[in-house]
């Protein structure tokens, strides 16, 4: 739980490692800004959903997908600043216990995209302690890249929702998502098997 023992990793690298592990059309919801820019840059998949606003809703949106499709693993990628906007969502998820939901928090302690201002939590709060205190017992810091991959593997077969926090550097996202919300939503629904293309 102590962040001082964790390596500072890179968002794009960690995201790419996650995507490389997905073999069963797992859904991935990317929170706003750099989080979904790096998801986009890691290689578009039909099962990816990219938020273009509604800061803080990556976990709730992923929860909705997880409740709709309990047999599909659903990942949500969220920044620490975004998560701070919607901490109550952690308790909602803890109460519902969707075992197919895996939450990943990219924590650099800053609002990178707006000018790297520190978040109010940066020097005082611990995301994993908050998650654990919110009722998510399966919450861990990833010590390094190898540990991150191990935690993802464990979460894939867990019987409870998992949260993995990753300490990341202050680098901006590598790519830029195409901002076409209708197409993003429609492609995602195709990717989830809800609809067929016209």
């Amino acid at each position: 739980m102590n962040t001082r023992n964790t390596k500072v990793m890179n968002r794009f690298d960690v995201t790419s490692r996650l995507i490389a592990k997905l073999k069963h059309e797992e859904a991935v919801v990317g929170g706003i800004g750099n989080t979904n820019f790096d998801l986009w840059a890691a290689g578009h998949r039909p099962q990816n959903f990219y938020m273009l606003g509604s800061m803080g809703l990556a976990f709730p949106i992923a929860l909705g997908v997880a409740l709709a499709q309990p047999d599909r693993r659903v990942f949500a990628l969220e920044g620490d600043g975004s998560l701070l906007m919607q901490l109550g969502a952690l308790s909602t998820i803890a109460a519902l216990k969707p075992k197919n939901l895996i939450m990943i928090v990219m924590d650099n302690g800053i609002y990178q995209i707006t000018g790297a201002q520190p978040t109010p939590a940066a020097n005082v709060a611990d995301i994993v302690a908050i998650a654990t205190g919110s009722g998510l017992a399966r919450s861990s810091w990833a010590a390094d890249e190898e540990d991150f991959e191990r935690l993802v593997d464990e979460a894939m077969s867990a019987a409870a929702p998992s949260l993995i926090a990753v300490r990341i550097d202050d680098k901006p996202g590598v790519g830029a998502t195409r901002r076409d919300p209708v197409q993003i939503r429609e492609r995602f629904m195709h990717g989830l098997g809800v609809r067929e293309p016209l």
Partner: protein
Amino acid sequence: MAIAEQQKQGAGEKSWHGIVLQTLKRNEISLIPYVPDRVLTPLIKNLHADPFFTTFATAREEEAVGIVSGAWMGGRRGAVLMQTSGFATLANTLASLAVPYQIPLIMFVSERGTLGEFNYGQALVCRTMRPVLDSLALEHHTITRLDELEFIADRSIKQAVTTQAPVALILNPLLTGGKTFDK
């Protein structure tokens, strides 16, 4: 006697909350996140008691909108229950998620702030609701009569789904009895 109670007697066994529950079920809307409200209590209680529905509280209305949006994309229909003051927290989420992504977000809003409101803050925040809905050109209906409830709710849900657009169904005190100072 509250007007809503008189209407209830006039309509036999039918209550406003019974009609809402049956209309949700008939339209296969099974996921119901809510932020509670005194007036909505009988509806919330009956939704919890019915295993057809997955009914649960969220910490904020935005969260509930995110959940039903994700569920819609995953092939499951939902609706959000809230109070007027809760709707007032939603402008950004409506403008950046529900509207641009064309999600048929179905909202039931218990209307406070009018027809006997005793809390000045509720009266003020209520005045922001329709301007926000109108500014985004969102479909909304204020339901005042029990005999119109089923038609408005059922048609509005079907329209939301087929046109992939949000709708707000505002449950007025004339329908529900509202919340009064002595309760």
